[in-house]
């Protein structure tokens, strides 16, 4: 399935350690994305979501980027993650990124029109200003022509994120990575931004990787979901399968911990324990310490098992029926 006609991106065996013998902060991360689809990467803080995004963009610090392992194929072109040069050429063009903090992600010293047109010009040369104006209008900045000359501090958070989106999309990328793009914004502005991204996705037929910890957002926009835990993708499936038929104990716990909107109010479900510190990562399943279904076998590295309909689960006990039996 990873080489179907509409395949846009496939990541294979992405790994990253901070030092030669240090633990793996990312281990064997795999996922796929088709054109025009949205992949949500979900997980708690520190599970490696942002590291995955930065590895893809080639934006890690040089000391780290040397340690990235794995391969990716993007628009039919395959390359290794270590090939920083190639990633550098692609980024901002076919592959671009929207960041979490619109307040600090724009350069305070330059006019927003210039910042957007610079993104166009470094890939296409002349014509940046017209293009920047066009993009500002498309992302819904009112009175875009005069706003071109504004500095970032003259805009609200939501407006700044629109500018960031305009900048990221100015070169018609086929893939946009959005790292928690709405986390820093008001709830009402959040939904506007999500809607804007959705509209732009339809017009440009681009793939989106949305990094978030908000399952509500995931339910709204995701085509596929990759659930990450402690640097690994523990479950990767269609959004439907993740919500209706979760197979990994961590995914089940994550969905259970979202309070229901209707029905009787109960105590919130929590996953006991906490994310293991990178230093304490050893062999075996990384979730075993918090898993209600853990057994002896979980001390060994779990295999990635393929369920029905390209649904991958990194667990010894998958599918779920087995776990319930073993727990009983």
């Amino acid at each position, binding site marked *: 399935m990873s080489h179907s006609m509409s395949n846009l991106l496939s990541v294979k065996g992405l790994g990253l350690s901070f030092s030669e013998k240090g633990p793996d902060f990312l281990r064997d991360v795999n996922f796929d994305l088709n054109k025009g689809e949205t992949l949500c990467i979900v997980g708690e803080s520190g599970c490696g979501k942002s590291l995955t995004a930065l590895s893809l*963009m080639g*934006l890690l610090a040089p000391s780290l980027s040397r340690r990235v392992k794995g391969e990716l194929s993007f628009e039919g072109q395959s390359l290794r993650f270590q090939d920083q040069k190639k990633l*550098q*050429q*692609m*980024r*901002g*063009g076919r592959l*671009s*990124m929207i*960041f979490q*903090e619109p307040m*600090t*992600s*724009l*350069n*305070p*010293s*330059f006019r927003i029109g210039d910042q957007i047109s*610079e*993104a166009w010009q*470094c*890939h296409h040369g002349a014509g940046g200003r017209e293009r920047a104006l066009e993009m500002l209008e498309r992302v819904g900045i009112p009175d875009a022509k005069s706003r071109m000359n504004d*500095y970032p*501090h003259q805009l609200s958070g939501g407006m700044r994120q629109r500018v*960031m989106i305009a*900048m*990221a999309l100015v070169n018609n990328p086929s893939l946009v990575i959005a790292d928690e793009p709405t986390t820093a914004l008001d709830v009402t502005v959040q939904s506007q931004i999500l809607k804007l991204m959705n509209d732009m996705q339809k017009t440009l037929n681009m793939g989106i990787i949305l990094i978030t910890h908000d399952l509500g957002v995931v339910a709204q926009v995701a085509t596929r979901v990759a659930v990450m835990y402690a640097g690994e993708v523990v479950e990767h499936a269609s959004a439907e399968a993740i919500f209706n038929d979760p197979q990994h104990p961590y995914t089940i716990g994550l969905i259970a911990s979202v309070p229901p909107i209707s029905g009787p109010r109960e105590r919130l479900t929590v996953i006991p324990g906490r994310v293991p510190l990178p230093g304490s990562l050893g062999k075996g399943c990384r979730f075993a310490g918090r898993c209600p279904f853990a057994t002896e076998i979980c001390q060994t590295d779990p295999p990635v098992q393929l369920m029905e309909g390209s649904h991958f689960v990194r667990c010894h006990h998958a599918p779920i029926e087995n776990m319930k039996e073993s727990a009983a």
Partner: protein
Amino acid sequence: MLRFFLRRLLVAIPTIILISIFVFMLQKLLPGDPVLAMAGEDRDPETLARLRAKYRLNDPLFVQYWTWITGVLQGDFGNSIRTGEPIAKLIGQKLPVTLQLAAMSMFFATLIGIPMGIISAVKKGTKTDFAANVVALSGLSIPNFWLGIMMILLVSVHWQLLPASGYVPPTEDLGQSLRTMLMPAFVLGTGLAAALMRHTRSAMLEVLRQDYVRTARAKGLIERRVVLKHAFRNALTPIVTLLALLFGELVAGAVLTEQIFTIPGFGKLIVDAVFNRDYAVVQGVVLVTAFGFILMNLLADMAYMLLNPRLRKN
């Protein structure tokens, strides 16, 4: 911008008045009688009394101050007690010399200090960074007078490339003027370059970890443009502050260097005035220096406004 400048200048007036009072009082509190110095061997009480009366040293202090300050405001700093020359003329002669020295030193300091600071910030933790820091530390630790003497020995005496001392006004012979000023400016500049390098390095390190630098990289810009445009532009504020302060210091503090290279500048004027207990000259020089400092600070503030759009008003 002009209104801002004028308003700030108005705010600076009390400061200048305070400084002028302080300068005036300081001279009165210092030991040493200028009249005795002037009279020389002849200590005839009548002569002393006559001199005191002539320079109005018997007036009450505030009258003396008032006489002095009203003169200053009209451009009359009084006359040198020693030579009788008008102080305004002395300052007018010496100040351009020191300004030329200061400007050329700043040129060297900027040319060496800022690129070194940027490179060592970008290459933080590498051998290049280490080497740059060692050079900067040496620049800070080597005293100017030692470096000056060593350079005279090597460049003037041994190689006979540049004149060891003296001064030629640029209006007279520009080439020769630059040549005589080259060594002293370099000596002064290296010390400043070190300070400037350290400041540039820390400002750049601070800016390079900002989110907008990552955004600039994410756009696909080449690293040089990310560093020189997006990062450096935002690191400029502390650098400009330092430049302004350094320039102010240079005008006042080139004393040692001017002595070593026998440059007839402001530093030499003040040293000679102090040795001769020429109160009036010292007062004038200190007042002009203080005013220069305030002016440089004002210019730095204006530079902030130009650099930082958040401070600009519509």
